[in-house]
């Protein structure tokens, strides 16, 4: 047998440049290479350092000011007073607006992604236009979404609903929870579409072929085979959309957020208080910034924790679903 054995010094995984270069690297020490490599490394370190400074600064300052009383109290009108203030209505407001948003954005985003991966002919003009629209939607400034929410949802849809329902005073044609949630849904649509599309593409075509070969229709295949497999990916899209929306303030400025409300929002046409907006108010409108500083940090910490908490819940659901799928398969 004269099989040719590959030379032993060649690593098996030739796609891994780092390992390859260990064998082929130039021996000579080059000062400028060292210098510039170090510079890029410093740039990376600098970015990481800033991130670390921001996070530790918030955690250290916020942790000392946070208490159970703080997160469970509905504040009085003067919420700059550190001893009596609380952020319960803001936590509730932010959670509800994000939750209502997912009800709208996930179905539309998932269906669009299904069309793009399962049905759309790759070269047709309509597919390309949809993709261009998704890309453009992702880049529209958040304040423009706010203007859109005001111009379309409130001044057009809401006012016309009021006229149709013969409401004596404006019920729908004013800033409200539902309009803020819908505005955010339009904003996060591309996030859900892109994440779902990625997870749909990752499913091996063999699964679809097998289902079709057994006589299932295309829609049955998508509903029973493709979607259950893609569920963790869809969840990821939802997580990304939620964490993006939870921290956004600009789109809700004119569409539903309130400076102060004595009660929690009870109806979709109510206004609401919001954590991100509250952070902005505390930072810029306070009569005495030194006294407000502890509650400002505490509120920022709650906002960050809430974003992470929403993430963690979604990650747990995702992990369970993976396990279930594995048991099935």
């Amino acid at each position, binding site marked *: 047998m004269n099989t040719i054995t590959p030379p032993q010094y060649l690593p098996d995984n030739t796609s891994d440049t780092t390992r*390859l*270069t260990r064998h082929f*690297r*130039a021996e000579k020490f080059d000062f400028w290479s*060292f210098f*510039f490599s170090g510079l*890029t*490394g*410093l*740039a*990376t370190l*600098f*970015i*990481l350092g*800033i*991130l670390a*400074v921001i996070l530790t600064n*918030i955690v250290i300052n916020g942790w000392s000011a946070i208490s159970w009383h703080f997160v469970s109290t509905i504040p009085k009108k003067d919420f700059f007073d550190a001893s009596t203030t609380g952020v319960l209505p803001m936590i509730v407001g932010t959670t509800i607006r994000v939750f209502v948003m997912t009800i709208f954005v996930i179905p*539309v985003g998932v*269906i*669009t992604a299904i069309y*793009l991966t399962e*049905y759309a002919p790759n070269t047709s003009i309509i597919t390309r236009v*949809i993709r261009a*629209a998704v*890309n*453009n*939607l992702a*880049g*529209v*400034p958040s*304040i*423009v979404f706010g*203007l*859109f929410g*005001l*111009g*379309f949802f409130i*001044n057009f849809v809401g*006012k016309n609903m009021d006229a149709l329902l013969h409401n004596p005073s404006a019920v729908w044609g004013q800033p409200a929870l539902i309009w803020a949630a819908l505005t955010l849904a339009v904003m996060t649509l591309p996030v859900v579409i892109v994440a779902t599309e990625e997870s749909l593409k990752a499913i091996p075509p063999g699964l679809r*072929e097998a289902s*079709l070969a057994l*006589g*299932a*229709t295309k*829609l049955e295949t998508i509903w029973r085979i493709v979607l259950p497999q893609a569920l963790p990916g869809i969840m990821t899209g939802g997580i990304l959309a939620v*964490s993006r929306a*939870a*921290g956004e303030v*600009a789109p809700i*400025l*004119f569409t539903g957020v309130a400076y102060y409300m004595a009660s929690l929002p009870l109806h979709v046409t109510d206004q609401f208080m919001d954590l*991100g907006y509250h*952070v*902005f108010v505390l*930072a*810029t409108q306070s009569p005495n910034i030194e006294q407000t500083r502890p509650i400002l940090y505490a509120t*920022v910490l709650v906002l*960050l924790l809430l*974003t992470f908490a929403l993430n963690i819940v979604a990650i747990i659901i995702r992990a369970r679903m993976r396990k279930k799928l594995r048991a099935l398969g």
Partner: protein
Amino acid sequence: MGIHRGHRARPLEWLAEKFIFLVSLSTILMVFLIFLFVAREALPIFLGQADTALIQKAIPPDQLETLSPAKLQQYLDLTPQQFVTMDRETLKSLMELKQDAQNEIPEKFRNDPDARANTTDWHYLLLPHQWSGYAKPEYIWQPVGQIQKYNIIPLLVGTLKVTLIGLLFAVPLAVGAAIYVSQLARPRVREIVKPTIELLSGIPSVVVGVFALLIMATVLQKIFGYQTRLNAFVAGCALGFAVIPVIFSIAEDALTSVPRAYTQAALALGASRWQTAWQIVLPAALPGVFAATVLGFGRAIGETMIVLMVCSASVMSWNIFDSARSITTTIAAEMAEAVSGGPHYRILFMLGALLFAATFVSNMIGGMVIQRFKLKLEGKR
């Protein structure tokens, strides 16, 4: 299409598939609606229908019959919907109110030529104007007061100033980090560093704003020793943090997608890792890096909360240590006090439409460059 795969769709499924198609058109519809409704609210400015002149020729109420409905509606600053609901008596009393208002204008404005000017005219929006009491023609944005001044040039300058500082700060850092992570770092370092930098994009912009307001402003003032603590420079640097993850992840993607063969060939010829990265990989990925910068620009120009928190006075100045007010900030700060349907409200929507157009173009360019770059790497072009 020789082989028939699966069963033919049943009638109900056919309907469902049509429904899927229709829903997928919603993204196109949304982009269209955004443009339509932002532009719709700004339309009277573009058509020259808004009139802010303080002194107008009052029409006596008894001449109601002689006016055409369109002219009457414009004279009374009414929207078509409002106009339809009003009867003759209401219109007449509105005309009387208007006449009274004209009679009550303070004496000092009587002889002021500015009081007769419609300040939403494009001359006033774009060109410097010598307002009464000023020594020379100036660009002024001052939307409140008896005579409203709507020159948008200070806002454009403010936006560009803050955005460019942000990009000057973010692009070298982000591209440097992208080169390091994709070309020079060990795989294990890379696996940790990449998601960590992308974590930065998960921090809400109000939080970055708070950090800039409380910490960065003080630190930067100590280093550079300028006068005003909150200025365009601080806002620009904070904006840089917000766009670093955007630029980093696109540039890193582009650098990573350069074929391994390029790198391996260069290394085999004796180039160092840095020489390979700088002279081979970066030039090959340049379109991607360019696109990252363009998309970062789009993100920076549209960022609202950071600039709103850090600086907000509208000053016509190119000095980076002066305050600046960007377009986004203006919209966010002034929309609440603008009367719905009034000239100020319309101008803010016009600024929104401008912003939308600017990001639309930069996204188009960025997207197209990336698409071409990918096709080229796949050898299809």
